[in-house]
């Protein structure tokens, strides 16, 4: 029996895979996931509080990407685009957690827990600890710039915020991190 070979994931560009996903090709979504899962998960493990959160956001990132695949601009690699989706989801998650924390704080008449409380639980070393103390918005921006190597313009586009906001968040993130690491 002659079997028709399926197109190899390695031979298709990200743009081609996303075009196929937009046309309803689930196999292409699997290939895209396979290609970018490790990088995205690494980013999310730094940007969130731990494995559970990272895996949840990873799942939602690819679901979102599949839903809006037709909007991809066709550049060679969709990694910055996926990082942008993931970063936005991390921020939304941080805002939700902050809302819940504020609500709980009001009920308990305790001090405000408006800062994302979860990352602190998983801090393993100084850098991770310092990173966990940043707000989600600053955390994702500093990771996108310093770890993912994205330019400020790319970050602004990915997060749909003005480039000035990116600069400001980067400045504050660096200042807070340096202060935390130097005991300030």
């Amino acid at each position: 029996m002659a079997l028709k070979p399926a197109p190899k994931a390695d031979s298709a560009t990200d743009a081609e895979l996303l075009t196929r996903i937009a046309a309803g090709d689930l196999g292409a979504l699997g290939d895209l996931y396979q290609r970018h899962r490790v990088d995205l998960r690494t980013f999310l493990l730094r940007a969130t509080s731990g494995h559970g959160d990272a895996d949840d956001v990873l799942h939602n990132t690819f679901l979102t990407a599949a839903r809006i695949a037709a909007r991809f601009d066709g550049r060679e690699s969709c990694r910055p685009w996926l990082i942008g989706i993931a970063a936005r989801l991390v921020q939304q998650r941080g805002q939700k957690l902050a809302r819940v924390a504020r609500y709980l704080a009001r009920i308990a008449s305790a001090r405000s827990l408006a800062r994302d409380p979860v990352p602190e639980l998983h801090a393993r070393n100084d850098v991770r600890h310092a990173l966990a103390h940043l707000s989600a918005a600053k955390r994702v921006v500093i990771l996108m710039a310093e770890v993912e190597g994205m330019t400020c313009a790319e970050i602004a586009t990915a997060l749909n915020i003005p480039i000035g906001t990116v600069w400001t968040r980067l400045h504050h993130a660096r200042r807070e991190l340096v202060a935390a690491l130097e005991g300030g």
Partner: protein
Amino acid sequence: MSCSRAIEVEAARDGRLADRGALDRHLHTCADCRAYADRLDALARSLRSLPDAPEDELAAQRARNRLLEGYDATRVPRVHRRGRWMAASAVLVATVAAIYLVTARRSARAPMIAAADPIVIDAEHARWSRIDDGTTTTVRLDDGDARIHVDHRGVWRRLVVLVPDGELDDVGTTFLVRVRDGHTFEVAVEDGRVTFLRGHDAPLLLTAGERWVVHEPVAAVAPVPSAAPAPPRAPSTPSIRVHAAAGATGAARAPIGDELRDAISDLDAGDPTTASRKLREIVERYPSDPRAEDAAYLLAIALQRASDTIGARAAARDYLQRFPNGFRRAAIEPLAR
């Protein structure tokens, strides 16, 4: 920082400094700014060197399956929302087609075009069967050779191949399975990836170009737990090899906890009662651990082997309830009935 130009260090880093040369000249003379630049470099290095947490292949594959099933499920309601329009369109098309067929002079016998089956099985001389259930297709290969091709480009279907001593979970797309005398002796992946769960062994990931073969008489291969009680036997370690093509990644083995390994040893040594006690402890103590699913599955098997049919059924139902999309769902369903 006392230097008023320290802000330029950051600006240069962010690509918003017009005259980088001026800053470089300043850095030669300003120790304060140089120290700040070094601090920012060190910070970036620290962030980049945060340790990664590698994910085992089995967990990754499960996550991938959850993603595809999840996305496939989200597409259905969209179809329903447009259902009325789709139905109206279908009626219109059907009407036009009927008129055409009735009035056409030629005796055109319209060919029936069925939706293409995404799973193609070439197993002419093999003993096998196939069950399609929801989004999963289960192929049971009892004996012979089966070459299987899965096209995931259409509707997503999970494919599980049950062999007498284990199961294979396809991640696409073309592979060969050979079974003789109740034992798998070869799995060869031509394209895509396949996970092979063989007996109590850790999952084995085979990628394109890799071939798994048993290099000893198949009679010595440790059988997998089956629904029927099995006689006690001595554990055996078959010689297996994975042949990889150039450039192919190696086989990934998931870690397995000492406690689970201990319970499996008891099960292999023919002591299902002790094994079931240990497995129950693992299931209760580590409900959110990735190993809990394997332990829950083995618990049902151990109870069945201990002739505790009621306990085995309860354990099987508990497994299905806790892991509705579990990896061993197809294998454990008969026990739950």
